[in-house]
Each structure stands twice: as C-alpha cells, then as structure tokens.
C-alpha cells in the first residue's frame, strides 16, 4: 500500500474502551493487503427468484470491451450521484516473484506513484542522467559490500549520497497524487497482495478524461524515481507490519511452515535481505514482464456514458503496445502427508492458528469452501463461534481466512482464535477439532443451509450499493476467472449446493495430515 495519509476528515478517535478484540482479518487486511470486496460479499432474499431482477439490472448496466492491444475494460453505469470510481487491476502479485527477489511487486506499486517523464520532474533529461549514475554506484556498492572492501564501501557511500541529493533536486515531489487530490480525487491508493496489484481512486464524474490521461500516462511512461528513499519507506513498512507486530511475525512464519515450495510461502512485502539488494533494474524488468495491456483490467463504475468511456479508452490506453503474455509461476507444492505444528514465543497474549490446504478458485468446489467458512465462523449463530466463544468461552474471539494468502492457486483455509484469560491455545484446538469432526460426520440441517444461502444473496446485494466496492469486485472476477459474470454465477452455484456436498468437502479438507497448527505464546516469564 502506498501509504494511507489520513485525510482531514479521517482521524479516527481512539478512545474506544470496548474490548479491542482485534480480528486477524483486520490485521492481515493491513499486512497482506487482503482484498476487501470478497469479504464484503460474504456478509449478508429468501428466494433466489426475488434477487434476480436486481442482478439482471446490474448486468444490464455493465458493458465491456477489449482494446486491440488486449487491455480489458468493464464499465458499470450507476447514476445515483455525479461521481465515478476507477480501478486498474494488474494480474500480478507476490506469487509471480522469484526467490531472492521477494517484495518486487509491492515495491513497484509504491514507485507507480512517482510520476512519469513529464510528471514529477523539473528537468527529466538531466534527472535521467543522474539516476543512471546513481544506479551504477549502487551496483558497485553492493559488490564492495559483498567483497567486504570497507574502504571502497565508504567511498561509494559518499558518492551515492551526493548523487542522491542531486537527483532529489530535480523532483516535484508526489506531483501525481497532488494532481489527483487537487482535482477532487478521493481514496487514492493501491494494494498489492499475493495474487494482484490494484490502483484506484474516485473523481467527480465530469473528470473522466483526467483519469484517462493520468492513469494511461502512469503505466505508459513510468519513471521509478526516488527509488532508494522509497526503499527506506518500505523497510519501515516491513518493520511496522512484521518485525514489531507479534501477529504479523506469526503470519509470516505460518505460511513458511504450511508451504514447502509454493510461492505463497513468501511474504508479500518481501524479506529484508531481498529488499536491501533490490535494484531499479529489478523493478523495470518486473514491469516489462507483467504490466503489458493484456495483463491489465480497467474498471469504471459510476455516472458515466459507456460509449464515451470506450472512445476515450481507445484514445488513451490504445497507445499501449501489446506485449507477450507473462509466464505463469511454477507451483510444485508436494502433497502434505503428516500434520505440521510450530510454536512461536513473542511478547503477546496467545493466539491459535490452524490451516488446511485447499484448491484454487478454479476448482468446481470453490464456493463450498466459502459456505463452510460461513457455517463455521460467520456470525453469532455459527458453529465455532457458538461452541468456542459463547459456550465454552475459551476464546475471546475466533475468525478465518479462506483463500489465504491468495486463491489464484492452491491455498490455505485458515481458522484462528484468541485465547480467553486463563485458557490455552490447545483448548481452542480441541474444540475446533470437535466441530470439524461434527461437520464431517453429520449433514448440516436444512435451516443452516438455507441461512448460508440467504446470507450469500444478501451479501451480494449489499455490495451492489458501492461504486468502489463494485469496481474491485468486477475487476477481481474478470482478472482471476476471465469473466465478471462469475460474480453472479457463483451465486447460482451456491443455490445448487446440498448438505451432502458440504459434508464431502469437509471430509477431504479437514484431515490431520492436511493441517498446519501454529501457536503464538508469551515468554515463560510473562505467563
């Protein structure tokens, strides 16, 4: 995320005295840039027929086109207010990185706010010459450090600093963001996850062409300036989200334990050692490989005329030369054959995490995993909440992450709990086991099945009320499944699921040999 400068209206009062039952969802949402839209879709019509006219209306409001260069556009008309939300969804995330170069996808996302050859600079020709020298000195510096040549390191560091200040003298700082905000743009930000990188903001509806101009320039002609300053920012971000956050450290470790070779085992923000040695060339190579128009999906939702959007898209984004399709990452994770378990000792009250391998969103059972999640932890009537929090009271709160850390490829279905005072993670684990076995042994009731289906319908309806929410939902389904209509087809698939289907998937999923358990414990002196 490229920083979330709080807005003048955004300072949140921090005086809440209520139990700060921090959900893992909230933490991971910050830490892993968890996509927000599918979660919203999971929250809350009794019959499938009742919702259909509304879904049809939405489908009628959506148009789509693909430019000659392969870039896909989805436009949803919504004329309630004269505003419009935009999103560029790049189908690239940390999963596409290579070992030793972790964090590059997220680094690129930060640098995509640094401008172009015309935005963010006072004299690009002069600036570019200094940037090239700076990169050369940095390469030599890395070599000198590797060789342990301290005299050379000192000399190069001094040269580096001089050049860095010279480069800084050409910069119009954050001009890209300044233009957007001055024009009345809100919500300007970006996120990187394991699967995708998303760039978004909203504008008053009369400024459609401003987005076309700025956003097309941004990925036609990016200049990755302030590269070394931003490295420091990202290292601070890593310290904040991982090193100084017990649960952040726990999550990073959990993925390393649950996966042996899958790229999902690496942190989105990257390892510190990789970030130290990352070069501008690494970013450029990654950009050249993954930011071709065929790998981008643009979504425009709001008070717009679709014909006008198409015309402008051809003018502005039609400029992108088409590029070869990027390679798919290699996924060669061996099947897990024995239970895995680890403990981490950090200054924190205890947490219990338990994860199971599940298939990607392309699997025919995809929606069933979401329904199981809803049955187990969705709301006060859900099975695990009722048993663990309400009745046994061994956990203060429980939660889940389904499709963790992404779902383009095989991933993890994770359950977690925060211990109540005087209780241990093992007590939570024992009750999880009891509830999971019950789901394997007995079919769920018609009432529960009906509840989960109603909640899926209502959840989709709620998400239709937000321009920015719809922009991210349409983009995600288009990019990951090839068709935004799968948003609605998933609902149809959910209608068809039976109690026996739930039981079948639960029997396969919740096997001890498929499980990784992680416990976060305080140091013995603190217990």
């Amino acid at each position, binding site marked *: 995320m490229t920083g979330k400068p709080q*807005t003048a209206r955004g300072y949140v009062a921090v005086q*809440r005295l209520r139990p700060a039952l921090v959900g893992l969802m909230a933490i991971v949402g910050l830490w892993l840039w968890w996509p927000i839209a599918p979660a919203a879709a999971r929250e809350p019509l009794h019959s499938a027929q009742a919702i259909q006219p509304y879904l049809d209306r939405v489908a009628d409001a959506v148009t789509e086109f693909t430019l000659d260069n392969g870039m896909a556009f989805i436009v949803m008309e919504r004329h309630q*207010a*004269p505003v419009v939300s935009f999103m560029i969804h790049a189908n690239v995330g940390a999963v596409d990185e290579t070992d030793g170069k972790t964090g590059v996808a997220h680094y690129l996302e930060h640098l995509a706010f640094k401008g172009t050859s015309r935005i963010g600079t006072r004299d690009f020709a002069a600036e570019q010459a200094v940037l090239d020298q700076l990169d050369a000195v940095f390469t030599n510096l890395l070599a000198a450090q590797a060789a342990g040549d301290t005299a050379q390191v000192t000399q190069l560091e001094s040269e580096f600093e001089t050049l860095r200040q010279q480069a800084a003298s050409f910069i119009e700082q954050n001009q890209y963001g300044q233009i957007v905000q*001055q024009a009345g743009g809100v919500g300007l930000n970006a996120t990187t996850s394991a699967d995708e990188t998303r760039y978004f903001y909203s504008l008053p509806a009369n400024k459609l*062409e401003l987005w076309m101009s700025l956003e097309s320039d941004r990925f036609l002609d990016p200049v990755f300036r302030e590269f070394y300053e931003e490295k420091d920012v990202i290292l601070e971000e890593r310290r904040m989200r991982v090193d100084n956050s017990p649960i952040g450290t726990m999550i990073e470790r959990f993925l390393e334990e649950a996966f042996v070779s899958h790229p999902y085992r690496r942190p989105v923000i990257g390892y510190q050692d990789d970030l130290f040695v990352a070069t501008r060339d690494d970013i450029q190579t990654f950009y050249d490989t993954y930011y071709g128009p065929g790998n981008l999906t643009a979504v425009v939702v709001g008070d717009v005329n679709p014909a006008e959007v198409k015309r402008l898209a051809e*003018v502005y984004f039609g400029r992108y030369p088409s590029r070869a399709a990027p390679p798919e990452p290699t996924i060669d994770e061996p099947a897990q054959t024995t239970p895995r378990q680890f403990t981490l000792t950090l200054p924190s009250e205890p947490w219990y995490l338990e994860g199971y391998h599940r298939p990607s969103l392309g699997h025919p059972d995809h929606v069933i995993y979401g329904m199981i999640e809803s049955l187990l932890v969705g709301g006060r009537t859900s099975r695990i909440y009722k048993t663990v929090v309400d009745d046994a009271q061994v956990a203060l709160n429980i939660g889940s992450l389904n499709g963790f850390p992404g779902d383009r490829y095989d991933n993890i279905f994770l359950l977690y709990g925060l211990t109540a005072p005087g209780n241990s993670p093992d007590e939570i684990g024992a009750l999880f086991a009891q509830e999971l076995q019950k789901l394997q042994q007995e079919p769920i009731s018609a009432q529960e099945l009906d509840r989960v289906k109603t909640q899926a319908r209502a959840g989709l*309806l709620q998400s239709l009320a937000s321009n920015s929410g719809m922009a991210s939902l349409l983009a995600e389904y288009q990019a990951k499944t090839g068709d935004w209509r799968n948003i609605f087809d998933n609902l149809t698939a959910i209608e068809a699921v039976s109690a026996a289907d739930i039981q079948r998937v639960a029997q396969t999923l919740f096997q001890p040999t498929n499980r990784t358990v992680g416990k976060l414990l305080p140091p013995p002196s603190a217990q």
Partner: protein
Amino acid sequence: MPILALVGLLGVLLLAWQAPANAQTPRFYDELEFPPLRDIEIPAYERYTLPNGLVVYLLEDHELPLVSGSATFRTGSRFEPADKVGLASLTGDAMRAGGTTRLDADALNQQLEQRAASIETSIDLSEGTASFRSLTEDTEAVFGLFADVIQRPAFANDRIDLLKRQYSGSIARRNDNPDGITSREFRKLVYGADSPYARTTEYATLAAISRADIQQFYQASIRPEQTILGIVGDFDSAQMKQWIAASFGDWQPSGVELNATMPQVNQARAGIFTVAQPQLTQSYIQLGHLGGQLDYPDHAALAVMNEVLNGFSGRLFNEVRSRQGLAYSVYAFWSPRYDHPGLFVGGGQTRSEATVPFIRSTLAEINRMRTTPVTADELAQAQDAVLNSFVFNFQSPGQTLARLMRYEYYDYPQDFVFQFQDQVRQTTASDVLAAAQARLAPDQIVVLVVGNPEAIQPSLDSLAPNTAVTPIDITIPQPGA
C-alpha cells in the same frame, strides 16, 4: 430534393454531433477542460417527532431491496462513574448480547441471521447507537426486534458475565500492539489519566460493575426524549410511520435521568515521555496537545492547514516520508470534536535510530505553519482538494441521513457542511497563519515515544537538553491489586 443530398446532409449533421470538444488524440492532464459537474441533489427526507419526544427521520431510497436504520441516544461513557469505567460500553454491548425479555439471546441471533439481518448496539465516549439492517421483505419483523432490543433488553446475567470476561481479556491484551499503547498513553498525557476522555477500563472498575448498575445506566441513557431515529432504504413512508407508531409510540422513560454534566477539560501534561519496549526495532511516536471543536470560527482555516500538512503531497508526506525516507506513515492533524476539545496530534513510526530526526522534522513542519504563510500554490491546492471533492459528501442517501442526525444530536445547523464549504472558499493564507498561531502551542506539546531506549540514538534527551524525559509504566494493574 434528391434523396442523395438528404443522406449527405444527415451525414454532416451526425459528424457535427460527434465533433465538439472531443479529444481524438491523447492530451496531457493540464490541457484538459471539464464540463461543469451536475448539481448535488439532496434527497427528500421527512422529520417528525412522536408525542413521547422521539425524533424520527425517514429517507426513502429504492435502488436495492434493503432497509437500514439507526437510533442515536444522548449518553456516553463520559457520564459513567469514575470507579465504574467500562459501564457505558458494557451497557451498550449487553443490550444486544443479552437478548430481550421476549426473546433470549440465542433465539434473537437465530431470527436475525436466518434472515441475513443484523442489529448492533454500542455506547461510546459521546453517544449511544443501535442500528439494524434488513432485506425489504423482512423489514417489519426486523424492525420489531430492533424496537425490542432498544426498549426491552433482558440483560441476562450469563451474557453479562461473558462480556465481562471478554473485557478482561482485552485488558490483558492491551499492550500487545505498540500502536495501541501509543494512542492510549498519548490521550492520558493530554487529557489526564482520570479524564473521561482518556481513562481506561481496569480489572477493578470492571469488577465494580453490577447488573443493577447496567440496568440503571440503561434507564438513564436509553429514553425516547433522548433518541433520534433515522431509517433509510426501500420502504414506504406511510407504512413505516405506522410501524414506528406501533413499536415506539407507547415507549415511556423509566428510572432516573442521566446526569449529563459535561466533564471539564484541561491539558494535563506537557514534555517528553517514553514507554520502554526493548523488543521493538521502531519507535512509535505521537506528539501534540489539546485541540478544539468543529464550531470554532477558524475551523475551515484549520482544515485547510490539515490539507497542507497531510495528504499525498502534503508537507509531511513530501518531506519526512518521500524525501527523507524516515517513515511509512507520518501525519499531524488538527482533529476537532463536535462538543468537546479534540486533539492536535501528529506522529508515525520510524526505525529506532531515526527517532530524534523524525521528531525534529515533524516539529519543524508544525512550527513552519506558525511562522510562514502557506504559499499561493499550497492554498489553492488545499482549497481545491476540499471543494472539488465536496460532492463525495453526497454519494448516498445514507450519508445525508447520518449527517442530518449528527447535526441534530450535537445541535449544529443543518447546513453546517455548506457553511464549511463557503468558509473554505474564503480562506486566505493569512487566515491559515492566524489560525495556526492561535491554535498550535509549541510550549504545550506532549511528545510520546514507545520504543527501545537503548537503540534510540541520539537519545531523547537531545530534543530538550534541560527537560527530563519522563518514563511511563504501562504495567497492567492485576485483579485485586
């Protein structure tokens, strides 16, 4: 007229329709001109009062088959007794968690979740809230449950016990996250540890709260003449009025009214303070002092100041983050409240050894606001950002309804948001300078650093050589202690 010519003329007309002002080639952002934005539409709403004093707002919105509503109650944790901190919050949670006298907690949960509906209640510092969300077809049933939760909470003992246990768990976990420590302790330094605006629930204050206390606080807080009810969504107003009359018409207050004497607010401490957390590799920093209210005459000038300091191209982001690479997050806000002094608060996180440079840089930017007028470009940028994004205050009917209710609750004029717009438009650079000089007080600044004292080099002493750095102990007082 020959047919051919007619076709030709039509062709010319069609071309003429296509051509005006349309870019056929890409234009740089500064070459663009924009058509005027269509006017903001304020949706029609209705406001009326029931004989028992309950104020009602209704706003129909038929885009989707959904209805939602909320009730705001004149209460707040700032009115709870000092030896029972946590009472207001616990009352707010127990209203919902304990079920009603007609329906126990499990049955209530079942009835709501089976319909994908929700009801939530809470009491925070300065208000109480109950809200509901429902599909259109369930509105009558869910609204009935909503009225039940507000008027007939059961306060079941076992649910109160569970909530108290959960609150204990939160106390135990309150030092797990350095951000939480920083914001909590900063408030205590500014408002005073015993101030209703900063105090925290402790095992002892929690243990002192009985079911009778909850019942009493509920009766004092949740009363028709102290309630504003607002409903937005896919309903028919005539029908909704009947349901409101049937569910809330007979509601009468009981018990003793709340003693709503506003707490006195004075700044408690100033200086440099530190919480030792040796395991951290970063310092978590907040600095600032007591702030003010939204109804101050220079509110708009201070909002402009916030824009200049913050945001994607604000001075702090440019200087401390982008230029110096000192932090992922850095900010400094004048953060006013509606009816009591808020905070002026800045801060961020930085690696331990950069703590003093970070604080110096942030304070330098704050001081610059007081000594030098903002530039014409900065002023234009800040004003444009507020005025051009003004339309985002009117994205949905629910947003308008929430604003109307908030203004009524805090006794602000209903057009306050438009007054603010006018004032921002009229703000000058000297207004911003005058406001910064009047409201920012360097001698009142509290600097709080949560971090590893060994690794903070140069040390915090270097910030103010003649001032002691005061350590703060955040050990959690144990039950019975």
